[in-house]
């Protein structure tokens, strides 16, 4: 039984199917879903463009901790919080436009560094349980954030703008209008093809980050991180400060997540003061995993494949589900079911692919050995 499956997997066309199983399945699904959903192609492209520009940065922030062997960084939520604090301040001071956004970045960077440093230290103490700990840490920090923003602002930190301050005199309202910086980056370099607005500047920023990450991999620090990621002991023997390197990777990730969240919210145009950040980690990680990354290995193509596949599902599935099931609410459940089901399924496929690759390799080695022995 086992042997048979192995010979089969050596067949190149089957191998191709296995290697690209996830994208193929997604393409088939989408091909069915788009006509079913009744959405126009134009809408679809516009929506996908927006989602790419909105989410890529946040997902890119996950790459560096994976490099350092810390798995998926659920504590990017902390970075998102830092970014939101920056946005609260600029909204209070009524600083608008690109300069408002830059000022928000400037204010939130030190906060993100601090939070990232804290998260790094905590995660260092929880080696092997980084992901679960990161998850809990996000919950914990959410409490601190709430304390700071809902009870501290207006009481300890002066806030004067009545449009974000609750009428009781302290605490920030549940939602904040970011009209002042709404889509300032997206529309900085205006380019319209047909009816579709292309956020050139945002894509440029994302491209810059990609270049930075590629460059970073080659630096001394990047090399160190990869060594740490592969084996802590080896890294220690070769004179790398393992703890420090791990903390640094989380700090960088947190700061990037902070910028990512600001980028995300400038596109959305409104901010949910207490909830916007909560699920940032879960969604970014889901998209990255769909893109073919694993807990131990993730690269830039994974990010973009992930965004496209994951968000296509999210755009198309609700209406397609509704058309398929006949009832609106069933459509919503159907969307969640398909979206997450597909994630689980594609993860299973990736894992399967990994195993096939391993077995093929083993077989190659065996053949090689055999040929040597035959000689």
């Amino acid at each position, binding site marked *: 039984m086992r042997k048979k499956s192995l010979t089969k997997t050596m067949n190149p066309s089957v191998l191709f199917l296995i290697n690209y199983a996830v994208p193929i399945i997604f393409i088939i699904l989408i091909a069915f879903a788009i006509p079913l959903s009744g959405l126009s192609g134009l809408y679809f492209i516009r929506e996908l463009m927006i989602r790419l520009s909105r989410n890529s940065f946040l997902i890119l922030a996950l790459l560096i901790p994976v490099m350092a062997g810390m798995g998926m960084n659920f504590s990017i939520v902390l970075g998102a919080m830092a970014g939101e604090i920056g946005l609260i301040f*600029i909204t209070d*001071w*009524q*600083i*608008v*436009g*690109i*300069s*408002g956004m*830059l*000022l928000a970045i*400037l*204010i939130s960077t030190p906060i993100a560094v601090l939070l990232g440093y804290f998260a790094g230290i905590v995660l260092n103490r929880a080696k092997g349980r980084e992901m679960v700990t990161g998850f809990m840490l996000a919950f914990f920090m959410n409490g601190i954030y709430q304390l700071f923003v809902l009870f501290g602002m207006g009481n300890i930190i002066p806030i004067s703008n009545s449009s974000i301050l609750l009428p009781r005199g302290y605490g920030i309202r549940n939602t904040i209008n970011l009209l*002042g910086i709404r889509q300032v980056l997206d529309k900085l370099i205006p380019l319209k093809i047909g009816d579709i607005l292309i956020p050139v500047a945002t894509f440029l920023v994302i491209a810059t980050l990609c270049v930075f990450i590629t460059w970073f991999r080659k630096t001394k620090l990047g090399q160190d991180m990869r060594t740490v990621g592969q084996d802590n002991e080896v890294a220690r023997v070769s004179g790398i400060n393992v703890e420090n390197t791990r903390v640094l990777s989380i700090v960088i990730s947190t700061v990037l997540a902070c910028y990512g969240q600001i980028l995300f919210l400038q596109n959305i145009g409104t901010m949910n003061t207490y909830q916007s950040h909560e699920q940032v980690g879960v969604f970014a990680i889901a998209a990255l995993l769909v893109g073919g990354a694993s807990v131990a290995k993730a690269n830039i193509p994974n990010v973009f494949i992930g965004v496209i596949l994951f968000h296509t599902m999210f755009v198309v599935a609700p209406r397609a589900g509704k058309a398929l099931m006949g009832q609106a609410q069933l459509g919503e459940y159907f969307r969640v079911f398909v979206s997450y089901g597909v994630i689980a399924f594609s993860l299973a496929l990736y894992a399967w692919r990994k195993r096939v690759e391993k077995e093929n390799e083993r077989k190659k080695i065996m053949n090689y050995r055999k040929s040597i022995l035959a000689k």
Partner: protein
Amino acid sequence: MRKQIIIRTALVTALILIGIFLYVIGKEHKVVIDNRDISIGDITYSASTTYVVWVDNQEIGVIKKGERNAAIVTGVSHKIVVEEIKSNVLTGEKHEKRFRLKTNESATVNIPAIINNANEWIDKTN
């Protein structure tokens, strides 16, 4: 070591300066535009017709006699243009004024004063 400290302090100072700069150029100001009678000293300028108003090249709208409107502007230096409008046709009688606002200032502008080139056409408040 010493050099490092100097570089770091310089960097932090530079960032703070950039922050202040961004604050100044990104700050929003409210400019209230009045088309109402105004008395400056002994002279009274009275509002008589309707005007279309642009602030920083953005149209604020038509302000009738005795009405008031507000504009939100960003940054330090600004330009206001008023043009008379009669039965929905622009008459071409344009007046232009430039003004600067400090970070926490907002302003009230009076159209009749602008038309008559009075000095006190703008009232800045903190």
